[in-house]
């Protein structure tokens, strides 16, 4: 009776043992990649808004400071989405008849708020506070990207916990002087490796143990 398995089966079986390891590793990689992909994190995805508001035009072109509209950013957890009144401050004078801005005028006229779609959406068990980040030298750009180059607001980063911890574990990589918080396209005046630790010390940014304590963000 001839052998059921040819001699090459030995090689195949050895190879398949190895292959299973690679397949499992590959599967793991696929899962993790999907998990980190824009598909899951919603990063880099355009969202249609009631008015296609352009940060590129307002912040980049016209040069309005972030805090003109996001007034609460220095004092509150929320940066604050401007009331319709803020839009109307200017748009009662300029582009006051533009059909593009009709929803804004309608909102002001009928006392009905605009319903913006949230772009940066953290899970409900995360309590992010804008004011403390701004105080400690985290620039708008660090998390929100080059807003002055966004015709429509998009989320530029994953907003996953590993991304948060990236900074919470070593804020020196990212901090900038307080007077540069709203600067877009910020370039450190000296090497960040030198400036970062200095600012961390100057701004009394807490140590690793505090910054990675769960209740700092979750409660």
């Amino acid at each position, binding site marked *: 009776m001839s052998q059921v398995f040819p001699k090459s089966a030995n090689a195949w079986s050895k190879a398949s043992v190895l292959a299973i390891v690679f397949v499992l590793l590959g599967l793991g990689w696929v899962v993790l990649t999907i998990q980190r992909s824009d598909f899951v994190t919603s990063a880099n995805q355009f969202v249609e808004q009631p008015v296609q508001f352009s940060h590129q035009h307002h912040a980049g072109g016209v040069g309005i400071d972030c805090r003109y509209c996001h007034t609460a950013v220095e004092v509150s957890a929320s940066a604050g989405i401007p009331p319709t009144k803020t839009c109307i401050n200017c748009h009662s004078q300029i582009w006051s008849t533009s059909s593009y801005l009709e929803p804004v005028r309608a909102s002001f006229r009928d006392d009905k708020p605009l319903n*913006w779609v*949230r772009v940066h959406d953290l899970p409900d068990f995360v309590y992010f506070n804008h004011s403390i980040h701004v105080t400690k030298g985290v620039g708008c750009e660090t998390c929100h990207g080059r807003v002055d180059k966004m015709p429509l607001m998009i989320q530029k980063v994953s907003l996953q916990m590993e991304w948060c911890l990236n900074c919470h574990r070593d804020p020196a990589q990212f901090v900038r002087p307080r007077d540069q918080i709203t600067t877009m396209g910020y370039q450190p005046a000296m090497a960040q490796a030198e400036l970062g630790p200095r600012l961390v010390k100057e701004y009394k940014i807490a140590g690793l143990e505090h910054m990675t304590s769960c209740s700092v963000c979750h409660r």
Partner: protein
Amino acid sequence: MTPIQITRAADDAENTDPKAHRSMSVPVDLQKVRARLEQQGGPQVWRSLEAVAETTEFKDYLHREFPTNASEWLDPVGRRSFMKLMSASMALAGVTACTVQPTELIVPYVRQPEEVIPGKPLFFATAMTLGGVASGVLVESHEGRPTKIEGNPDHPASQGATDLFTQGSVLTLYDPDRSQTITQLGEIRPWSAVIAAVRGGLSAQSGSKGAGLRILTETVNSPTLAAQIQQVLQLQPNAKWIQWEPLPRDNARAGARTAFGEYLEPVYDLSKADVILSLDADFLASEGASNLRYARQFAGRRRVEDSADNLNRLYVVESNHSVTGGRADNRLPLKSSQVEAFARAVAQQAGVAGVTGSAPAGSEPYADAVAKDLMAHRGRAVVMAGDSQPPAVHAIAHALNAAIGAAGATVSYLPTPEVVPTEQHAALRELVTEIEAGRVQMLVIIGESNPVLSAPADFKFAEAMSKVALRIHSGLFADETATLSHWHVPSAHYLEAWGDGRSFDGTVSIVQPLIQPLYGGKSAHELIATLSDRPERNGYDVVREYWTSAKVPGATAAVAVAAATPIAVTPAPASAPATPATTTVAAPPAAPPTAVEAFEKNWRKWLHDGFIAGTAFAPSAPMLAPDVATRITAGAVVDGLEINFRRDETIYDGRFANNGWLQELPKPVTKLTWDNAALIGPSTAEANHLQTGDIVAIQHDGRTLNVPVWITPGHAKDAITLSVGYGRTKAGRVGNGCGFNTYALRGSTAPWFGAATITKTGETYDLVGTQDHWSIEGRNIIRSATLEEFKAKPTFVKEMEHLVLDKRISLYADKEYKGDQWGMAIDMNACTGCSACIIACVAENNIPVVGKAQVKRNREMHWLRIDRYFAGNLDTPDTYYQPMPCQQCENAPCEVVCPVAATVHSDEGLNDMVYNRCVGTRYCSNNCPWKVRRFNFLLFADFNTPQFKLQRNPDVTVRSRGIMEKCTYCVQRINAARIQAKREDRSIRDGEVVTACQAVCPTEAIVFGNINDPNSRVAKLKSSPRNYTTLEDLNTRPRTTYLAAVRNPNPALPSNPMVGGHHAATESHEPAAPGGGH
């Protein structure tokens, strides 16, 4: 048997598990309990009779982490079906993580109001009126949603604290069962139709000048509302106004009138009182003009730090075991009807002329000792009489206070906060008589007094009311009274409407709304306006107009000048505010605009402060009637069994029956939830062969009610206490069907106590109490000493340690805690057990209500519980209250057993609970010696009802099912303070972080702060000689520590031994059950 049947059987077992009745259904041999308590080495402190009796059921209960079927599947068939179900769920469990976050909208303001910063709450001062007395509050508002109520530190009644009703009132605001539309005989109608109906009713009365009109309100302490009603009465001179509070204070009024010839409210200053005698007065919790203030003053005299300090001494003579009774140094249980005899005996000894009597049998030594103590502390003692006591006792108390020099020293006399004090029982009786005589054609009922439910049963109010041709009701709920009315108008909640109200000392608060009426409710001001000549006025205009013209002492002068009075105030002579002479300021005549400006300035200040400064009454020095002794009419002693009616400790008079927070709150002394019961003492139970849960038929005054009994240690012999407000049929989805309607038994002849007989029916009822929940399994964690013992040995708590630990021995590496380190100290000598902290915690931390069936399974979710321990003998035990939040151990046993690191330590010493990591193994709870962790067995949080979403604190995660949770030391408040401090580049100040339980506490028993700061209040308390750690021998190093109780019993009277020490077992020396290690 098919698997399906098996599953169903298992479900049935879960739902109707007979063993869940265990602590109720098995007889407790009280003889055995007594014997065990008296024997040498018996339990020193104990929570329940079942625990002392060590019934097998109790042991079984103790052995189980959670009741049957909650923690384990021992039945192999059940286990198999469980596996089948779970394998399917497990396969899908991972998929739940794959949901894409739903799109969220951001809805900014169109025009952002000034001062509103999204994400930052604002606080508004207003006031809540309950029982005709207002108390100032600060309401936290998140973008227009009131979420939490705090006390107003500047208000004389609140002093920063609130009671549990105020805490719970925010849930009533959002209650989806509140009535939401105006109805006429069930048909939805507009507001204009109400006005038309009222005007129609009035025009029918125009010929008789309102002879057929009756207005029935709660006790009115609002100057504006009273002025409005009086204006209506001017227009309709023959109409009548009746005030009705289900538990009126007629006796106190009548007593004052006997003593002084006029209505006066005694206001006590307990901070000056060394000796206090309470004659059935529950002044620390439910009675009196201002129990928050009294509790603060009382506790202020209970702090001893070294041997030089002294304590006050509290004597309580009462039938029911009340909260105040639990704090007594010497407590005498006595039938309510015998209190008068006791008071007479004390008065006679204290030298009150003409008052004679002998103390009830057995209480002579007590009366003797009390009288001697009172006389020995002339000018530093005080006698208080309870609302339930007859006028005679109040009059004797007034006479006693005069005799012992209390009047003017520890007690002052003020006009009542209600604008027109009346005899409410008499007024309601007259109303019923007039209706029966056909003299009433139009009845307007406003408020929550719900007379159809609460009127004395012999009045047959419901029957009478149905004879009135036009019945209009306005209230928060379409309750029993609304059902019998033609018209029902939803009321605006006090957080939705403008108003005003006087507090105990006359201080007026303007009540300002926090939110537009959620259900289109109308305030009392707006409803009364429909009866006036200007029917369509809103509450704001009415209140402002009144105060524009009112004379306010101390307000900017121009206002007084502009006092043209469109609404006349004609208060009853007795209650006229004793206006200080300084009010008639000779102000120069001001031009009208100046007056308007001045008023605007005042108005803004009043709203900002939460009260109008200078409106407090000036105390009067009334002369005690010289013939007071002869004017006192002696009451009759009830022979045999006596029945007592009391306000409920958690749902008040029934108006909070639909409030889940308050229904689920264990009653401070009995720990009963979701029901009322006939409270009886152990001796009464023995004499009648009754067990907790046995239904008895109570016959009283020709009426019968079947109620289950609950044996309360310390309750007076031969007396039953029933609380009112339960057994509602129209309360709403939460309150309907809870408990027993004791109003049906209560008549006008004996509104507070009377004779009754009981018959055992043989049936039983499932009463659910939490006294045995979260048992510490026999380990004694209460320590106390008498004042003498403390003075002799201030370090007594240290000597009660189980073993002296060398703190360096630990399996864990020692950690150095730097920076802010949070800790808490709880003073058991200050805590009165009032339980407001539990409701504050519930409101602050979005803690769900689970319902009676789940409470029975130990699943109540309260992060903070108050363990009530009895000590000593069954009939006159001492009571200890121990608030038990998470102990925040440094070496936390819960952390090491979590397989997913869902509970970990923060650098500030907090034992963090990370909900999003928790997978629900419950190992942590199993490993917690204090049993302070709570598990969401089901989806307890209501994720659907939109109203409840509005109430939630946005700074705290709403937990879903399968999640463990526990006290966080209010980490959201710590974070808010830390961020604020860091932004201002400073460290967190002491007192800047106040936990919810601490903020609400009337006695300041809970102190929280940074233990690394030697100057912080908490660090100072922790260095007190009374400070001790519970279960210190476990070396978990809790951050929550306790200050031992120091009691001050009169050495001349018998007292229970003090407790604590390593040879002190509570329930049992034995392990709960073989292998029962949790």
